[in-house]
């Protein structure tokens, strides 16, 4: 009987080896998959037990603070002025995870980032509790506040993005409707659930989304500056002549009208210059211009402004702006006025304005100016990075001058008295067919930079669905006053 007994012994060893092998798989090789699973609350609870780092804006004002508590989760996240910064700072919730900076800089804030390793080790030795690193944002508290107030004063749904053209620093990033992240960070799970339910209710305007980076909108006439840039690159100048007709037929069709705003002719003559066409935002002229430039060059020019960049991180992830398929000549005309399938984020449109302002050099936009250790010593400073040359500086100057004329032609309130502004408005039709679009209030756009000759701030403003003006809304009436107020806040009194 000893032979089978020895074999049973072998079988027993095999069983234990199988268990050891499987334990190796679960605990070592594949451990990360389960350790980092969002359903695994151990990691989150450990993070709460550590003092999380702060998020501050440019002047050092703390927007995400921590407060010690007596409950099981030792530290409570406190958001100062929560709704103003909600989408950028994000939230930290036991039940609902993280978003915004809280998510993308999580490792740093919770202290597990490798750059904090030395400090963690010293905390281990000295017996102090490890603490997270701090994140300092580029946001300007005053500009951010004004942008938020402007959008919320009339209950607009929309977004404002402001950038420093020379560096790419993001000065303001606002998305409305907003919310108070403190409710989601509450340690009371009922409070969290109630807040989450309210925020995700279908008729609540989706406040959790950051429209500045995640909202994709047709750019409407603001896209004409990109078309103009493509035409200039193609060898045209500001006096190049295009049709002035009030309505043309789309190429390849016999009865598909392509009208100017209200069907008005662009000028008294048969043709009109590029400069006038931009200033008056004539659709027929820009349809023709896009047709002449062609799909390929228009795409190239757009990409140089930052379109079709799938992995733009600021470090918040940014949706990809794109031109769409453009299957035929008619689609090319429609794309030339920022309709059809052209979709941009407010951040992308701010990048267009900033790039023109910066003499054609596109700077990488960024929100984090520096990260600091728990001792407030800087660990890493973000350096401005020019990623592409979208236009020659001469052409950028020409486009800037045309945009100054556009600002002169733009109505709306709040014009800056002593500061010259270069801008372009947009009134983007929403919905596919023209029948549909006539019954839906358009999105109002305004992109601009100032002072025109020595730009310090570039902005993009969008107000969804006409704001308070409904079907009669235009970019000039609804979005321009907000943009001007924001630029004014930054430029005046500094």
């Amino acid at each position, binding site marked *: 009987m000893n*032979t089978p*007994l020895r074999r049973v*012994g072998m079988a027993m060893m095999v069983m*234990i080896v199988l268990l050891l092998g499987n*334990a190796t798989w679960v605990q070592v090789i594949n451990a990360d998959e389960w*350790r980092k699973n969002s*359903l695994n609350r*151990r*990691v989150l609870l450990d993070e709460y037990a550590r003092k999380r780092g702060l998020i501050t804006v440019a002047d050092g004002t703390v927007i995400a603070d921590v407060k010690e508590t007596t409950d099981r989760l030792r530290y409570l996240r406190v958001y100062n002025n929560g709704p103003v910064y909600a989408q950028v700072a994000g939230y930290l919730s036991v039940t609902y995870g993280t978003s915004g900076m809280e998510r993308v800089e999580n490792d740093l804030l919770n202290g597990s980032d490798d750059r904090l390793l030395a400090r963690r080790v010293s905390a281990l030795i000295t017996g102090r509790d490890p603490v997270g690193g701090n994140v300092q944002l580029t946001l300007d508290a005053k500009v951010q506040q004004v942008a938020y107030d402007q959008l919320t004063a009339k209950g607009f749904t929309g977004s404002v993005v402001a950038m420093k053209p020379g560096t790419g620093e993001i000065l303001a990033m606002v998305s409305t409707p907003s919310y108070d992240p403190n409710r989601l960070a509450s340690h009371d799970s009922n409070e969290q659930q109630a807040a989450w339910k309210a925020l995700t209710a279908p008729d609540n305007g989706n406040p959790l989304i950051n429209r500045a980076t995640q909202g994709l909108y047709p750019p409407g006439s603001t896209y004409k500056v990109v078309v103009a840039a493509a035409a200039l690159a193609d060898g045209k100048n500001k006096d190049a002549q295009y049709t002035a007709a009030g309505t043309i037929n789309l190429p390849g069709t016999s009865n598909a009208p392509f009208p100017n705003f209200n069907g008005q002719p662009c000028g008294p003559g048969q043709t009109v210059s590029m400069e006038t066409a931009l200033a008056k935002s004539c659709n027929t002229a820009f349809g023709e211009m896009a047709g002449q430039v062609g799909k390929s060059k228009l795409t190239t020019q757009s990409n140089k402004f930052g379109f079709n960049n799938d992995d733009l991180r600021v470090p918040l992830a940014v949706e990809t702006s794109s031109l769409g398929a453009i299957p035929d000549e008619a689609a090319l005309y429609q794309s030339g006025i920022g309709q059809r399938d052209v979709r941009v984020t407010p951040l992308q449109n701010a990048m267009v304005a900033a790039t023109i302002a910066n003499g054609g050099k596109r700077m990488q936009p960024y929100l984090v100016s520096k990260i600091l250790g728990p001792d407030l010593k800087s660990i890493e400073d973000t350096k401005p990075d020019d990623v592409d040359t979208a236009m020659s500086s001469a052409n950028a100057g020409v486009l800037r001058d045309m945009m100054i004329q556009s600002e002169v032609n733009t109505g709306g309130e709040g014009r800056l008295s002593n500061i010259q502004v270069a801008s372009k408005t947009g009134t983007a039709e929403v919905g596919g067919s023209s029948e549909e679009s006539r019954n839906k209030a358009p999105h109002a756009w305004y992109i601009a930079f100032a002072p025109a000759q020595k730009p310090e701030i570039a902005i993009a403003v969008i107000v969804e669905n006409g704001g308070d003006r409904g079907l009669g809304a235009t970019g000039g009436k609804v979005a321009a006053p907000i943009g001007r107020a924001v630029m004014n806040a930054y430029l005046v009194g500094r």
Partner: protein
Amino acid sequence: MKGSPVPTGEGSPGASVATSTSPGLRPPTRRGTELVMLAFAAGIVTLALILVELNQERSLSLRILWLGLAYLGLFACAHLAVRRWAPYADPAILPCVALLNGLGLVVIHRIDLALEGAPSADGTTVWDPVAFKQVIWTAIGLVLFAATLKFLSDHRTLARFGYTFGLIGLVALMLPGVLPGFIAPEINGAKIWLRIGPLSIQPGEFAKVLLMVFFAAFLVSKRDLFTIAGRRFLGMDLPRARDLGPLFAAWGVAVAVMVLQKDLGSSLLFFGIVLVLLYVATERAAWVVLGIGLFSGGAIIAWKLFTHVQQRVANWQDPIGRYDVFGGGYQISQSLFGLATGGIGGAGLGAGRPEMIPERNTDFIAAVIGEELGFVGLAAVLLIYMVLALRGLRGAISVRDSFGKLLGGGLAFALCFQVFIIVGGVTNLIPMTGITAPFLSYGGSSLLANYILIALLLRISAAARAPQKAPKPKPQQPAIADQHTVMVERPK
């Protein structure tokens, strides 16, 4: 075996055959080794307890001293019992058990601390620490252990009561399945408990040992029947159809347990033990192949018919995906999360979050160990189990009588197979089936039954190592095939 026929001096020829020691000297009992190893185990357990207290930021209270001293005292008594009644027993077995049992106590105490003040599943906040109860159970278990050693001076006596044990075991195994709910309630989906007053017992744990005694006795007495070859098929000698009776009976019981009690783990354990006993008794792999085929067939049919079997399999395949399903992968997911978070080195005893793992101090205690002691700790525990089972098997291999070989082999395999089923389930190697981890899990029945099991293993190993008292009448030993008939014969 090791035949070294050099009979000189006062030693008998038989002694030199039985042991590898030089003739003329009594073989060493190695009880001193056992004591040293027990002290080592006590050291580890005490250290573990202190770690828990420190990590939980508690002062070293008197209660700890109580637990520690109780532990030391209990195993000192167990050691004395072995020294007196089974002096030649294997010295490694008791320390392994002591270490596992002690570690189990520490972890159960640690889970008690984690649950203090936390609301339980039904919303009440009654704190029910069970570590002390487990100490009591350990004490009772060790009393049973000592009693078994005292009153069972020769394991072969058991063979005489084989059929009696078999009947009691069968009744005990089936009882909870057939009794009405008020006395045999369904707890966590399994109907394996008997509730008598304030006590809940799992008769299946005892049935395991009883039935093993029965099968060993039965197979030894009827051994030659099973070795008669039937037809040859695919290079294997198939047994004759009429000899398949016991196998079919065991299969029937296993299926009944699976169906009536919804206890997949016990069913698998029971059937695996029977198969191994058959294989060892007959030395023929055909039984194993046939048995595995039968069990697989039964399992597939059960899987088709019963939702509780389907659930277990689905949870095994995708625990995380079925996280929110009722009766779904929540338990396994939490276990995997705990194990993965523990990683290689573990969170540290007392520094993990075992309160998040369901059934943490019974079925899933291995997950708690994996979380707090890490892969290193879990591997150590598994290796202790392996040493324990292999030392038991070693006794079975070197003991002289067939019944002892069969029983010892079966007991050692049962221990190891049970560990495989439960730890495999907790780490999602196989579908989770709720059985206890021997000596670690909280629960009286399991502890008592396993202490009896260990006493039997020690008894068999003692028989293997002890010098034979009287020389056997030479010249001729009976043929090995006839030997059993002498063994089971009732003395005049």
